[in-house]
């Protein structure tokens, strides 16, 4: 487990931010204005969420004329997926040992 996933999980803790990330992932590149048009929050709020996602490395921004467009950085999600995978496999190993111990314990 590396602390590199810390900001990722922190960024994903907010439900609106997860929605923003999903939209950017499904239909990006998108601007904050385009996102705000479909969400029950202000453009300023969307900007804040996008900034948190950018700091966590989950989205990238590119400037196209006056627009700033956001795209998903799938590599960052891979880090989170790797954490989940590694932690899951470690628990599989521990619980198998627990099961072996239980099979020799008094009933």
């Amino acid at each position, binding site marked *: 487990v590396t602390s590199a996933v810390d900001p990722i999980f922190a960024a994903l803790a907010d439900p609106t931010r997860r929605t923003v990330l999903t939209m950017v992932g499904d239909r990006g590149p998108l601007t904050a204005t385009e996102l705000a048009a479909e969400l029950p929050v202000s453009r300023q709020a969307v900007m804040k969420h996008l900034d948190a996602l950018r700091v966590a490395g989950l989205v990238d921004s590119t400037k196209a004329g006056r627009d700033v467009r956001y795209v998903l950085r799938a590599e960052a999600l891979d880090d989170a997926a790797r954490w989940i995978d590694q932690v899951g496999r470690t628990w599989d190993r521990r619980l198998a040992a*627990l099961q072996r111990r239980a099979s020799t314990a008094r009933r």
Partner: protein
Amino acid sequence: MRVTRDVVLTVGTEVAWELLTDPDELSTWLGELSPDGRLVEHDGTVRRLVVDHVDEGHQVGFVWWGDDGAASRVELTLDEHADGSRVTVTETPLTRASAAGGIRRLAVGSAWDGRLVDLELRSLLREPALV
């Protein structure tokens, strides 16, 4: 976001509870747990562990973290099962800030040994990112 696993044990919940909470039993499947909350797993991984929730015979919850400071919260839940008992484990990653906040909340809880919390706090706050 969390990891969930479960396993069925061929022992009753009373014995299973001992397997989950007795340090001697923990050493048979998880690792060596010292009274100061230091856990050394069989693969050599060292973690600090603070128990923050106990529902006797049913559930134990703790926060643990390794040398890199990445903390997560673990819950072990015990339920009756036709073949004996079922253990469900969930592990949820915590951010550094929420881990420190959790430890601070523990510090004001009356159920916890203050000296142990002091120890954990000092260990956590050694990391500037947590201040």
